[in-house]
């Protein structure tokens, strides 16, 4: 049997690509309705183009052209694709690329909800006119992980004992028969061990405009004067009359008009509008949305997401910065800040930059070595970075230690004030050679550090530290200090209080953050002094879930616990999001991003999941429903909320939040995250994901007399991330969630004398 399987395997390998890479044409359809009709027709046809992806490493599913020259304009390609099997090593790392003209879209296995179910994937593109536009669907398994997975999936199991009986493996079926145009019956797709299929390809005409929308900042304070720029391009080959409407959209869908005008745009030209954006009524996240409507009613839209908050932590999505010497050139700083902003970061933390992370935040020379890591740093570079960050509405925070000093400057502080110091870790040659390191004669990275006695005497050191923080704030413009390796003791409580009192008196609004264990801080009653008045407490240990296999459910439970420790004290929950510690599994990324945001975590350093759901942008846009730290847990969620069919949802009860919005307005927020199939990070290489929950009924027992004002379904991985759901309010509120795949946020706004508790 083994020999037969090997023979089949070899024949398949020799045969190369099985299935059909076909050349097809796509019809141009006048609008969305026509496109949907064409898609429905293709569904009824019951046939599709398919390729076997079980054996080769890459291939082409479709190669096509529009069925004639496309006039200059904007278009949308529709390609309903299906993939199977899902949660299988053969396809878990597949990279599918859809192209149309110059546009490109990447898809992976996690984009497909159900095996062999067709999903309409779209790709918008611009045609310059006069020629047919090519499009295509290709696929590849070219990453190391993909090759590893494929090897694991296709290597026959050879028994250790050659005489032992061999399990009969099913022989591969012959591929399905294809018709004249290369299509196979959809119902025969399972004859391919692993397959990628396309049902059809159609092109929909769009309004011939492109829009660029930019706000001056990614986050504003309420008192800021916001400004935006909208550029409308006419890509058609005839002049067009355009009505440009600019609004801000906040909350779920509250629209605030900003500007409207009508004008004629000659062919190939653009019009730029720059003007003020009123921030009145806006807080948390919002979108500046621009719509360019043609006289035929077709419209193009564009948007830019931004935040409005007076405390930097409320909308914080932090990027880490080091090696500031490269930013001595201001252009370099501006470029990187622009890039990080585009990635969705709202702030940066410079870590390991100071000459001493306790006692020296004002370097004597422009170029110097950082105390902890001996990184090459530049005061000018740091200033350039902060200036660029602020210009883009990003906050800039510094890393610090409260427990001791480091580097040459730290040991000089120890020499001057040994009465503060309890001990030190060093080798005296490291410090002797500091000057040589600065001169570039030697190069190494060793952490020489001191730690303070935790007694009344060493509290005097806090004045030195606070003065340095103030001086550094004035010199550089920091918005906050985040302490690393913070550990609550009676002494740190006193020290923190002392520092905050001095700094906040000198720099009103200056913020503080801590890397600490919130549950322990809560236990010893330290949180008020730490995060009272809106500080941030950041959890670092949980980053290791991508370094060592760990339960995903444990991650959710831990983060939910920490959030509930911090928020009652008025603080914000930060999270060291360490996805990059090892090459992450995309399924782990989806879970970690969803859980982090569902738990109200402001993430640090690594980027949240991107290709599937734009989690960074989602976090800022819907910050109100994720980060409002006045939201509180329900006392007994199962007594209030019920789901039809008792789906396995991760920590839904602990994640449920209620908040009073003032007057008789109240809000309930639910987070639905299907429990993982494999509850361990780093181990689910086949990426088995739970089947989507479809048409999930939800019942909520609202307080007597409650009147529902809206039910909103938010989902970062859906084509439309924010949709209003219809509901019925009789004895209880009932509604249906169309689909829950990875994470949905349900926002129920209602009025009542008393909100849920």
């Amino acid at each position, binding site marked *: 049997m083994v020999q037969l399987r090997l023979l089949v395997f070899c024949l398949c390998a020799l045969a190369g690509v099985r299935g059909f890479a076909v050349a097809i044409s796509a019809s141009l359809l006048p609008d969305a309705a026509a496109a949907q009709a064409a898609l429905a027709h293709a569904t009824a046809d019951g046939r599709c183009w398919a390729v076997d992806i079980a054996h080769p490493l890459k291939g082409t599913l479709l190669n096509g052209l529009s069925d004639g020259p496309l006039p200059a304009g904007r278009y949308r390609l529709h390609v309903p694709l299906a993939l199977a099997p899902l949660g299988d090593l053969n396809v878990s790392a597949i990279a599918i690329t859809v192209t149309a003209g110059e546009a490109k879209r990447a898809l992976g296995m996690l984009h497909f909800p159900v095996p062999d179910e067709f999903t309409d994937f779209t790709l918008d593109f611009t045609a310059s006119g006069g020629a047919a536009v090519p499009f295509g669907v290709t696929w590849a398994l070219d990453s190391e992980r993909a090759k590893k997975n494929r090897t694991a999936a296709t290597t026959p199991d050879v028994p250790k004992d050659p005489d032992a009986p061999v399990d009969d493996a099913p022989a591969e079926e012959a591929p399905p028969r294809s018709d004249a145009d290369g299509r196979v019956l959809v119902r025969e797709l399972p004859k391919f061990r692993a397959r990628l299929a396309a049902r059809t390809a159609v092109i929909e005409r769009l309004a011939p405009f492109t829009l660029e929308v930019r706000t001056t900042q990614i986050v504003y304070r309420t008192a800021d004067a916001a400004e935006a720029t909208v550029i409308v391009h006419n890509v058609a080959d005839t002049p067009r009359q355009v009505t440009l409407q600019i609004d801000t959209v906040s909350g779920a869908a509250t629209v605030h008009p900003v500007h409207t005008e009508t004008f004629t745009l000659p062919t190939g030209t653009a019009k730029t509008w720059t003007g003020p954006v009123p921030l009145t009524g806006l807080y948390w996240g919002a979108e500046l949305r621009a719509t360019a409507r043609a006289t035929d009613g077709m419209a193009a839209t564009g948007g830019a997401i931004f935040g409005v908050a007076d405390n930097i932590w409320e909308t914080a999505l932090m990027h880490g910065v080091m090696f500031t010497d490269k930013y001595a050139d201001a252009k370099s700083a501006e470029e990187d800040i622009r890039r990080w902003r585009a990635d969705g970061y709202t702030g940066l933390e410079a870590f390991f930059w100071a000459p001493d992370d306790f006692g020296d935040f004002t370097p004597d020379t422009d170029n110097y070595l950082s105390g902890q890591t001996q990184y090459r740093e530049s005061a000018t570079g740091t200033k350039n970075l902060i200036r660029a960050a602020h210009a883009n509405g990003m906050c800039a925070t510094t890393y610090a230690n409260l427990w001791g000093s480091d580097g040459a400057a730290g040991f000089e502080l120890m*020499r001057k004030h040994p009465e503060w110091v309890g001990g*030190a870790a060093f080798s005296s*040659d490291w410090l002797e050679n500091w000057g040589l390191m600065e001169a570039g004669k*030697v190069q190494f990275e060793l952490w020489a550090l001191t730690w303070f006695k935790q007694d009344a005497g060493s509290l005097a050191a806090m004045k030195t530290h606070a003065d340095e923080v103030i001086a550094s704030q004035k010199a550089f413009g920091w918005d906050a200090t985040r302490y690393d390796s913070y550990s609550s003791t009676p002494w740190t409580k006193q020290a923190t209080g002392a520092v905050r009192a001095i700094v906040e008196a000198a720099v009103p609004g200056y913020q503080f953050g801590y890397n600490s264990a919130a549950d322990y801080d809560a236990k010893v009653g330290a949180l008020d002094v730490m995060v009272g008045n809106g500080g941030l407490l950041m959890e670092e240990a949980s980053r290791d879930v991508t370094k060592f296999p760990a339960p995903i459910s444990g991650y959710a439970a831990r983060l939910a616990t920490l959030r509930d420790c911090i928020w009652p004290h008025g603080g914000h929950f930060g999270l060291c999001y360490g996805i990059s510690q090892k090459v992450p599994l995309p399924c782990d990324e989806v879970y970690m991003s969803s859980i982090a945001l569902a738990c109200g975590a402001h993430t640090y350093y690594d980027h949240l999941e991107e290709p599937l759901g734009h989690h960074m942008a989602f976090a800022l846009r819907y910050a109100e429903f994720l980060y409002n730290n006045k939201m509180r847990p329900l006392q007994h969620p199962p007594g209030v909320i019920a789901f039809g069919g008792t789906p396995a949802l991760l920590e839904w009860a602990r994640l449920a939040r209620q908040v009073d919005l003032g007057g008789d307005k109240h809000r309930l927020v639910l987070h639905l995250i299907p429990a993982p199939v494999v509850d361990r990070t780093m181990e689910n290489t086949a990426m088995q994901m739970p089947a989507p929950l479809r048409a999930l009924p939800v019942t909520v027992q609202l307080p007597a007399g409650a009147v529902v004002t809206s039910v909103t379904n938010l989902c970062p991985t859906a084509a439309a991330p924010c949709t209003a759901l219809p509901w019925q309010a009789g004895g209880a509120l009932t509604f249906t969630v169309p689909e829950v795949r990875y994470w949905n946020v349900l926002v129920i706004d209602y009025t009542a004398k008393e909100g849920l508790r």
Partner: protein
Amino acid sequence: MRRWLVLLALLCVLPAYAETDDALAAAKGVVPPAVWCTLPPTPPRVLAVRGLWHAYYGVERALARLGGALETDCWHSPKSVRFYPETYEELMTFHLVVVDNINADAFGPTRRAMLKTYVANGGAVLFLGGFYGYQGYHGTALEELAPVTFPEKDGLLQAPDGLRLHTDPDCPDTRVYWYHPVMPKADARVLVTADGRPLLITGTYGKGRVAVFAGSVMGDPPAGQTPFWAWNGWTGVLTSTLTWLLAPAKADTEAYRGAVSAALAAAHGKREAEKAVLLKYARLCGDRAAARLLVETAAEGADDISWDEVGAIDAGVAAYLDASFAPLVARLIASEQTHKASLGLRLLGGTRSKDAAKTLADALDAGDVGDGGGDGLDNPGGLQQDPTYRAYALRVGTLEGIGRLGDPALLPAVRKFRDEIVKSASRPESHPASLLPEDELYQEAVIASLRCGDTAAAGAAVDVLLANRYLFIQLAAILDEQMQEPNEQQILAKKRAAAAIPHQALRLTQLPQRVVGVPDAVLVALAQRIAVEKDAKVAELAMVIFGANTNPGRHWPAGVGEALQKSPLPAVAELGAGMR
């Protein structure tokens, strides 16, 4: 009855003894040697155990004022002293040990016991206070040898407004802010007090001398006050103390010869045993007769000697070479054994025999001597038979021989070789973490050029000497690197660094000594290059090259002292000032 009483007394005393540093050292098999050897007192050899803030004390400046010294450094971390001598034979090569701001635990019981024995046999120790200074000294061998007793706890006290120093003759208002409350022993001398508290105390222990400075360089003086370390007179106090500490140092070469002869006899001609003796005693070679004994032993064996022996013997006998060594050297060169031949070529320059220049020039050109290569019987298939290695080993020897000969006629050949080999040598900006054979040959060629009178090589020579130090630092840093999850490459790098460090440490000491006695023509250029160097460790090089103690009786050409005085480093400027 009396027997029982004695037994009872022993039972009472033994547990206490078992905990002493001496007992703990003995339990590890570390016992003092039967014979204590001492090197000639000029130049003084100083072992500096450099704790935190060592530079503030200005020890190097005081040594420079004394005429310089050969300084060997080791460093402190709270749990250890790194690169500290592990054997008595290493320790006894020093005339003075400076223990600056080091806690007792960092030494450990064995090293504490060794230091006590060292002083008892004529060594000297200067203790300096600080954050770690005198911590845990109470009840240890260090307290035994010191002229003071140390408090069991609260051994560091603060005087926020400072204590005023009183010296003899009395000094202007200068203060100490942190001090150790030590208690002078009965026979101790208190040389400096601070508001009545003993600050500098001296005393003897056995044949040796010990000074304890109970102050520290810690504190943040209020405006208008002068801490003692910034006071001009402090160098004078320290110099006087060092002078007193070093006064008894004298060579005991007879004892040495006896010891080495006895050890060689005990080796019964066995190669490994002889090798151990040579490595152990070579560094202690104290006169010409002893030097001859070492070279004879190296030349006589049937087998080739090791590369370590080549370095050790060369360094040990260098000062005593003369024409009388010529026959021995010829035997080494003719041995056809790679390492022996390399040693012979090194020593050849010191014999100044009439054919030395030609032999060395030929060897440099050919990378070999005589017929080339041995029969390999001593180590069949061994490294020494590898032609590339042999060429390297012989050229290293040749360049050292040429340098020692100092014949300007050989300069063109050395320059040519140097200019060629530099192309393959490591670039300093790459922070090399190993000494390639090409690096070593380049360094030897630069030093040889200088010794042959090449003024243009002065800058490169100082660069080479400093580069050796930088390599040592890089290797030490690799050993220290904290790695959470080291990969194979990093583990290998650590192993390599650990293996390379001893050789590099030896090179740090030996290479600067080769620059001693360079021709007058290169001295001003050398001084000018040293004077612009900001690396404080150049002071140690300067003391070797320009110190009166390493150059007894030498008259310095005009311009040397003036150049050195321009250095921003006090120790270097002090050397220059001393030349007036």
